[in-house]
């Protein structure tokens, strides 16, 4: 999912920087009200856990492998603002320290994994939780990672390195991650179910539903 440097046209990379910059800026402003002695440590632990979980490449027979991305999980557990911040920490460390994803492409990788994955996951979960909570977490993880794959597919497909072949890049990215996304959904649902059982007070919205922060308006 991580786009290396050289894949995106400068204009496309710049647009992604603007989009992720605005979304992360809004998330920082909103996070001010939410952070504190209780949630700041949780933000750190969730971010670190997502980094570690992303290192676990699940081998899939047939020559592919996928790792948990976790943006939807972050959004569901922490809410949209802190979820965006947690994933921003993960994706930034991956690029700067491990060369996973480019520097020019960092804006695009942040947009896909720290913005789209988190916000779509959060929105889908909120929309469906009334029907079935664990099922909503599954669908949220699945749909969100597919949506972020769409963002990546559109970005590279609009770039010259990929010969502007949007008709090729989007189906490969969306199709591939829609399949792999079932694993993302299953892990999201399993871990969410565990945390919600063990520590319901840590789950945003479980103790005071009306206290849920509204989605970041992007």
């Amino acid at each position, binding site marked *: 999912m991580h786009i290396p440097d050289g894949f995106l046209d400068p204009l496309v990379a710049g647009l992604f920087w603007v989009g992720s910059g605005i979304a992360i800026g809004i998330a920082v402003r909103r996070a001010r009200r939410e952070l504190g002695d209780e949630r700041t440590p949780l*933000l750190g632990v969730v971010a670190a856990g997502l980094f570690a979980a992303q290192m676990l490449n699940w*081998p899939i027979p047939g020559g592919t492998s996928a790792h948990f991305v976790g943006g939807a999980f972050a959004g569901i557990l922490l809410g949209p603002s802190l979820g965006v911040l947690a994933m921003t920490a993960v994706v930034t460390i991956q690029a700067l320290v491990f060369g996973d994803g480019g520097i020019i492409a960092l804006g695009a990788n942040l947009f896909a994994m720290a913005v789209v994955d988190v916000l779509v996951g959060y929105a889908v979960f909120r929309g469906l939780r009334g029907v079935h909570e664990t099922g909503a977490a599954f669908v949220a993880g699945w749909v969100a990672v597919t949506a972020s794959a769409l963002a990546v597919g559109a970005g*590279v497909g609009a770039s010259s390195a990929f010969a502007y072949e949007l008709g*090729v890049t989007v189906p490969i990215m969306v199709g591939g991650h829609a399949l792999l996304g079932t694993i993302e959904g299953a892990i999201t649902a399993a871990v969410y179910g565990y945390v919600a059982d063990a520590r319901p007070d840590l789950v945003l919205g479980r103790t005071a539903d009306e206290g849920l922060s509204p989605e970041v308006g992007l």
Partner: protein
Amino acid sequence: MKALTRNSWGRRALLLLLLLVVLAPAFGWASGVVGYAEPLENAAEATGAADEASPLISGPFPDYSVPGLGAPAGTLVSAVVGTTLTLVFALCAGKLVER
């Protein structure tokens, strides 16, 4: 950081992080066995973009390896360093935003 070692949930969370870190080399080996390919790599192959990737910086631990160390040890060190850095970075960012 103090809140993490003081609370029982914080200690449990740190243990869970340690477990994930220890698992990283095993998963790295297993995915190498089936051959690692992501949809983005497939899309790059299909459109002739595969050779266009040109990293500007590869970081001190390129591709989660440690120069001079073999795969399992390098992956483990990368997992320890990356998880710790992410924890500290997110905690510091949280503290800064809090104010």
